[in-house]
């Protein structure tokens, strides 16, 4: 899993580089300062951060062999992830209504590509979490020696950390 995440880091690294290159190229369309709603995005970032906490709790449940607790926190994590995705969808729709679509400018293209790839990663993570939940419900998740919970937890934290980087580079630096 570490090996795979190293590769993912290169992936997001390249996307963020493209964005940094293009953040001021707005082709007379709206730019970062015109459009970002920092308080709103801070809240949804906070939600995602909290999901890392619940993931830790779920993992802890797994380590302690307490399946009930693990399932509860898995669901909570998936919920928070869904809220975050909901926030992203809302944000995208409001940007579009303010006249910034993916074709407006190099800035808008790189913004949407970067954030939606992150969104896809979160969605995949949610699928993983639900998969774990189902397996556990079916009694097919042996609590001993199972690395699947570890790997998915690691993945989830990674996606969170990437978001912190994105939030800093995409939202805070251009505006601040």
């Amino acid at each position, binding site marked *: 899993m570490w*090996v*795979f995440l*190293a*590769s*993912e880091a*290169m*992936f997001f690294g*390249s*996307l963020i580089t*493209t964005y940094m*290159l*293009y953040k001021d*190229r*707005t*082709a007379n369309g709206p730019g970062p300062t015109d459009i970002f709603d920092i308080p709103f995005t801070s809240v949804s970032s906070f939600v995602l951060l909290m999901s890392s906490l619940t993931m830790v709790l779920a993992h802890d449940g797994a380590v302690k062999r307490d399946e009930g607790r693990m399932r509860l926190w898995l669901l909570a994590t998936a919920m928070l992830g869904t809220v975050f995705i909901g926030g992203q969808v809302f944000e995208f729709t409001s940007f579009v209504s303010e006249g910034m679509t*993916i*074709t*407006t*400018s*190099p800035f*808008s*293209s*790189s913004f*949407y*590509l970067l954030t939606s*790839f992150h969104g896809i990663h979160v969605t995949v993570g949610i699928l993983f979490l639900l*998969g774990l939940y189902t*397996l556990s419900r079916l009694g*097919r998740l042996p609590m001993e020696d199972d690395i699947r919970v570890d790997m998915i937890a690691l993945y989830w934290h990674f996606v969170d950390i990437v978001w912190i980087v994105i939030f800093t580079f995409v939202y805070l630096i251009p505006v601040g």
Partner: protein
Amino acid sequence: MATTSIERSATLRRPSSKTGLVGWLTTVDHKKIGILYGMTAFAFFIVGGIEALLIRMQLAGPNGDVLTAEVYNQLFTMHGVTMIFLVIMPMTAAFMNYVMPIQIGARDMAFPRLNAMSYWLFLLGGLFLNSSFLFGQAPSGGWFGYAPNSLFAYNPGPGMDFYAVGLQILGIASLASAVNFIVTILNLRAPGMTLLRMPVFSWMTFVTAFLLLFALPVLAVGLFELTADRILGTNFFDVGKGADPILWQHLFWVFGHPEVYIMILPSFGIVSEVLPVFSRKPLFGYAAVVFAGAAIAFIGFGVWAHHMFAAGLGPIANTGFALSSMVIAVPTGIKIFNWVATMWGGRIRLTAPMLFAIGLVAQFTIGGLSGVTHAIAPHDYQQTDTYYIVAHFHYVLFGGGMFGIFAGLYYWWPKIFGRMLNETLGKLNFWTMFVGFNLAFFPMHMSGLWGMPRRTYIFPPGMGWDLMNLLSTIGAFTIAFAVLVFIVNAVRSHRVGEEATGDPWDGRTLEWSVESPTPEHNFHETPIVHSRDDWWNTKYEEDTQGRPVRVPAGAADDGEQLDVGARERGIHLPDPSYWPLVVAIGITVIGYGIVFLRPQGPASNQWSAGGILFIVLGVVTLLSGYFGWVLEPLEEPGGDDH
């Protein structure tokens, strides 16, 4: 033993047949997957070769009229893409799959089903790319597909969509393999097989996998951006909207330069296996060879912009990249020195694998030297986009990479198929290929320096290029003859070839300690490794002068009950599975959907219903493959009772 009475739902059942078509479609055995990789890549080698012959027919003399300009562009692009992504990389992957696990004393790869998925994605991705010919236009923007040139406005038609999506599919395949190789090497080595006892080929597999791991995602981003520009109308490369005209070049070459080492390091690994065996000496400076391989890989990430000297980066950047590029020559030189020193004073047997290995060393040296000449930025201004470059990269890719692959084919063939290839035909194969290769590509140094541009479909008479081009074409057909000799040899070996013993070459590494062909479970007992060249050391002791003396026969091979299968021995092997194939089909169908989504280009408002349908179908297939994969039992209940 097997009980058939256990009830289970039909879909989640793991297929149990290991032979016949179903056996191949569902196999997760690293050896079978290796063979599939090799056969498929060889078929693509013929396709790419025919494309090359067509190009050379067109350029045999001035004012050729075999091909139109448009077809010419498609052919050289598809030739390059095919040779790189569908021949060299998967051919080396074939050896990595087959040989590496045995060399390190493992029973299979770490993730057998993921391994199968990689193969199916490679096969389907290759067919996907080539199917573009059927849809009216193959990619025509060169193998590096420079944007903005490759945008819809300048290159309409589906060709470049097939390029961007096809490489994406192949990239997923390679990325999954890379993870698989790394985890296998880190976790599944036999007891005693420390990293510094690992055979060099396995080492180069390890290094190559890391290169793939870090280089591919950068290409993936570039390709996503290109696809988005072409289909959705985004502005990553649209200079009119203020995009950067060389962003693509940077992204591509950050991937592209490591890519050339991805293609050559495995062949270096093969040569480092072959030379010691046929010189009957250990590899000279093992640690130096391994370290040099790692160094090449590492520095390889810092030199990409030497492909962009002519793009106007400025003198400081050009100087920096020129210097770092020349530094790479140092570890490469170390390797060449070590190979020569390995042969020095050895008892050399000039068999076919050995000849190809020596051919690699000689020709790669020439290609390396011409490479150093264009690491010097002012030189490169003169040489770039001429036939000199074409000569250079064929010396490294064909003279190096492909010769190494042929060395590997001749070397491991008996292990893989249990029959020997004919030596006389092998030597004929080598000499015709050697002569043909040099005849085809050496003159290109001349025509290039005399000013002939590359990627030109026609040239006028009276430029002094006629003779050189004619020689190149004759050479190309000589190579084609050599390939035919190989095919004859392979077919003949299959029919009447002499049966191979477990250790026909008097080898040094673990794969030669088991029968040929390798039994399904690789090793009857997990080997315990005591030294580098462990297998050799169980066969030979050193006398007082350090010369090898054979240990009395019977000590090494006990020949016990070879016909006893894995199950009777209580060895657990992973069961076959359909899901890797299903997942790969899903991804490919999504690929077609993307290509057909916007046939009129991003500026139009038309979305094709067919494209959407394909995407939906593909996603459904992918998801069902994914869930089938996750939910299928790890082993067939009742299939073995351990």
